[in-house]
């Protein structure tokens, strides 16, 4: 990643060189040792990683991702879900949905994986200072937004209201449950959770996460919204946010495409005029709104 300045905008940048001026091959993964594996949900786990050679990890901004390499299985892009201020470790929450992530699921403490990155644009956390921050997350979409929570909470006085709206499939699918409970207990945060379906023993909200947007007071004239989750959820969340008075310029979304190289070289993640790995994954909604309803993209 080097010294690239990340602005969180979707401007198109020039393709990177295969080898940087410092002679480092950006396609070469660095070995990281697994310090801890935490089973989050039945199909989702979190790795805490530290550099295998004792070097410090590169800095990252909330919203960026790394390419994680399970040796012998392959490489996948995974958002960084840890605290940007914790410079000793890298934290990644992974859902096992394919051959590479299934191979990762079998890894244990002290195993080594490859890491390249961090890559991509980031959430506009600095630009959001002085404003209300509305975070709308769905399912595992909470993982790329957790670093935002850490960042904002470390500078809580710099922000207005902070609202976290989280939707997931069922009470058993609530990611980072303990952390959400801690956040919900704070008086300076509004945390609302909803599930799509639940039995009679669930005392919380049932319904889609978009329905929560109208329930919580915040100031649309001075707010910024960050959304991450399934694409259809983000489309409807953005509509609800606009219904509350936000302009598309105040909304940011994290997109997911088939990222391979992570540096805008291979073109696998091309999305219209963007490479999601390099121009995204975080986009201002104003730049991508019209593309979200084009099937051919």
């Amino acid at each position, binding site marked *: 990643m080097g010294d690239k300045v990340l602005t969180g905008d979707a401007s198109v940048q020039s393709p990177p060189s295969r080898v940087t001026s410092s002679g480092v091959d950006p396609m070469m993964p660095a070995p990281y040792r697994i310090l801890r594996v935490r089973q989050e949900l039945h*199909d989702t786990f979190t790795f805490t990683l530290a550099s295998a050679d004792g070097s410090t990890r590169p800095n990252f901004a909330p919203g960026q991702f790394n390419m994680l390499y399970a040796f012998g299985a392959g490489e996948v892009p995974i958002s960084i879900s840890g605290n940007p201020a914790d410079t000793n470790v890298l934290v990644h929450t992974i*859902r096992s*949905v394919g051959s590479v992530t299934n191979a990762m699921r079998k890894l244990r403490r002290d195993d080594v994986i490859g890491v390249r990155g961090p890559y991509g644009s980031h959430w506009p956390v600095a630009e959001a200072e002085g404003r209300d921050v509305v975070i709308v997350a*769905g*399912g*595992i979409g909470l993982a790329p937004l957790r670093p935002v929570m850490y960042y904002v909470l470390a500078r809580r006085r710099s922000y207005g209201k902070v609202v976290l709206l989280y*939707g*997931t*499939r069922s009470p058993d*699918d609530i990611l980072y449950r303990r952390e959400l409970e801690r956040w919900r207990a704070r008086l300076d945060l509004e945390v609302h959770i*909803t599930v*799509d*379906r*639940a*039995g*009679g023993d*669930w*005392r*919380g*909200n*049932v*319904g*889609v996460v*978009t*329905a929560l947007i109208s*329930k919580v007071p915040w100031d649309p004239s001075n707010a910024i919204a960050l959304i991450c*989750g*399934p*694409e*259809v*959820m983000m489309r*409807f969340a953005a509509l609800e946010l606009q219904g509350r008075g936000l302009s598309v310029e105040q909304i940011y979304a994290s997109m997911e495409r088939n990222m391979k190289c992570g540096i805008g070289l291979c073109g696998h993640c091309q999305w219209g005029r963007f490479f999601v790995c390099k121009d995204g994954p975080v986009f201002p909604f104003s730049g991508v709104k019209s593309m979200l309803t084009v099937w051919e993209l």
Partner: protein
Amino acid sequence: MESLEGILSEHAFFKDLSPDHLKIVVGCASNVRFEPGQFLFREGGDADTFYLIRGGSIALEIFTTQKGPVTIQTIGPGDVVGWSWLIPPYHWRFDARAVEPTRAIALDGKCLRGKCDADHSLGYELMKRFAHIMESRLQAARLQLLDLYGVHN
């Protein structure tokens, strides 16, 4: 103590309703409370009331033999529960149960149906407001059907 007229005029559902229409609605309204576990109504029962929720939480449920009561949606302050009083044969299609201590305004649907028949402009005003709620709930139900957070979404 806040008057029913004041409460209704402040509620999102009746916001900006004309004073004349509001007076008619107030004539069909009463304050109610529900304790946790208490049913507002049961599936199949006569639908002659609807509720504006002021505080608390209501679960809309369907009872299934295999799973027992399944919560389809929860409803909170500012929301409206029930539109079966508008549509023949005026029977509830699901259960509504208080999850928390809940304060609400109950509106007599039979009374309002008569008023709406007599004053079509009131009927049209209420139908527009209920149509908006129905559209939101339909949209939400469609999204829930998609199983958004499944592996393939």
